[in-house]
């Protein structure tokens, strides 16, 4: 039996050939090493993200999230729900707070859920994968399987918004959360501790609708990483990853800059440090190649002493 088991909520971006497919790949590899069993919630659906407010009413957005909880409670009772996507986690957790504190909304949601043969019981908490790593394992435990310390790589820990606010990771501050830097150090990398854009917004969904304004945000986020002499950015959020990596070429066209800063996931760092290959770490899923990390991944692991 696995050390820990969770009901997994991957979310729309972490599906096969979706925009964060490599987040899923690296998470699976990381969990394999840590002996974590992730069972996807059968037939999970989209959380509605933070952007669907104009189209979806309050109750319909709540019901979408309640459905995932109900499926998790039915098929994977007793297991905590774990999300890797910041928006999924936030959407689910915000919905849960409403469902658990507002009896009317809960009754309404259950009346709607009944149409799909489901019921929300409020028994299952939803957590972010980072919470699981820090709270259920802890840095010392996470450091044990490291066979290839990420020596010689400096990482700018870009925490972003929704893994940090409004809920955040317990014990961390909203203005200067330290967990990502600690994770970097746990796997033997160097953390750019003075990285000043670590909690700046990348524009989120508005990267699609307000491109100029969002790209200005992204430019600051990347340039600050350069200022700190970082080799790459690391983030816990799939939308942050995509926005900050993908739009650098557009920014270069508009501003005449030469940005080419790789943007990785914490799960990729951990997979490589645990001895995973480029493929297992999803490092083949980048537009801007995280070369230094790929080099370590391609090196054979040192023989065990």
């Amino acid at each position: 039996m696995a050390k820990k088991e969770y009901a997994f909520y991957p979310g729309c971006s972490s599906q096969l050939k979706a925009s964060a497919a490599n987040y899923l790949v690296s998470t699976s590899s990381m969990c394999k090493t840590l002996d974590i069993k992730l069972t996807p919630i059968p037939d999970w659906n989209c959380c509605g993200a933070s952007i669907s407010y104009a189209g979806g009413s309050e109750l319909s957005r709540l019901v979408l999230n309640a459905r995932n909880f109900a499926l998790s409670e039915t098929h994977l009772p007793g297991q905590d729900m774990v999300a890797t996507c910041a928006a999924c986690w936030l959407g689910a957790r915000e919905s849960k707070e409403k469902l658990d504190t507002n009896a009317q909304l809960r009754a309404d949601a259950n009346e709607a859920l009944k149409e799909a043969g489901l019921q929300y019981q409020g028994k299952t908490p939803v957590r972010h994968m980072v919470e699981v790593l820090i709270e259920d394992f802890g840095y010392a435990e996470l450091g044990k399987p490291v066979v290839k310390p990420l020596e010689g790589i400096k990482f700018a820990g870009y925490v972003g918004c929704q893994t940090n606010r409004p809920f955040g990771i317990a014990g961390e501050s909203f203005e200067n959360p330290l967990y990502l830097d600690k994770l970097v150090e746990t796997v033997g990398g160097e953390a750019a501790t003075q990285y000043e854009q670590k909690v700046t917004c990348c524009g989120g969904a508005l990267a699609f609708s307000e491109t100029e304004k969002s790209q200005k945000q992204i430019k600051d986020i990347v340039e600050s990483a350069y200022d700190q002499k970082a080799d790459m950015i690391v983030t816990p959020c799939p939308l942050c990853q995509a926005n900050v990596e993908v739009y650098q070429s557009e920014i270069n066209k508009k501003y005449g800059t030469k940005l080419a800063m790789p943007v990785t996931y914490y799960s990729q760092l951990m997979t490589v440090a645990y001895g995973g290959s480029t493929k297992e770490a999803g490092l083949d899923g980048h537009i801007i190649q995280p070369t230094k990390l790929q080099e370590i991944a391609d090196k054979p692991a040192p023989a065990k002493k």
Partner: protein
Amino acid sequence: MSELNTSTTEKYHNNFLREVEENVEEGEWVKMCMQCGVCSGSCPLGAHWAHPPQELFMMIRAGKREAVLSSDSMWMCTSCYNCVVRCPRKLPITGIMHGLASYANKLGMAPKIQPTRDFSLQFWKNCTRTGRVNELRLTLGLYFNDGLMAGIKKGWAMRNIGLGLLKAGRLNPFELFKGHSCKDQQGIQAMLKKAAEIEARRKHSTH
């Protein structure tokens, strides 16, 4: 003016604050604002709001209905929650902004050309169609929002990003025909239909 807008205006006369409290998601919080301005100073897109949150709250109290609901401002919210965690009165400002935007849209008072509104509507339609987001259709839908030629132009401008994602295994061209989806689509549609019915019923009983 839409019919709903006319009937709502008649009902609340000049009491826009009460209208917001009764109709806008999280609207009951508006009166708690103490006008410190931390929200406005904390917003990443703050410079682009004609009326930052603090100002919108005062305008609601001052009965500036038309100016608030037809404003572009709340559509600038990126859902970063910076204002929420800094607000000394703990107002759920992000939620209030979404609520105001949604209400303005419902009344037909939102600006006609508002890219975030369009994206929001498309996102909801997209994710509830099969239960899961079809990223390719979502992106293309946005490009082609202003017509065929504009779409082709935008698609061409972004071709390198698209090809990059394709090469990286993060974009599936076949999603155009068949994307990711939930199995129980019927159940999802039925439950969303029911949710709409319940909301209509509640509306009716409180009015």
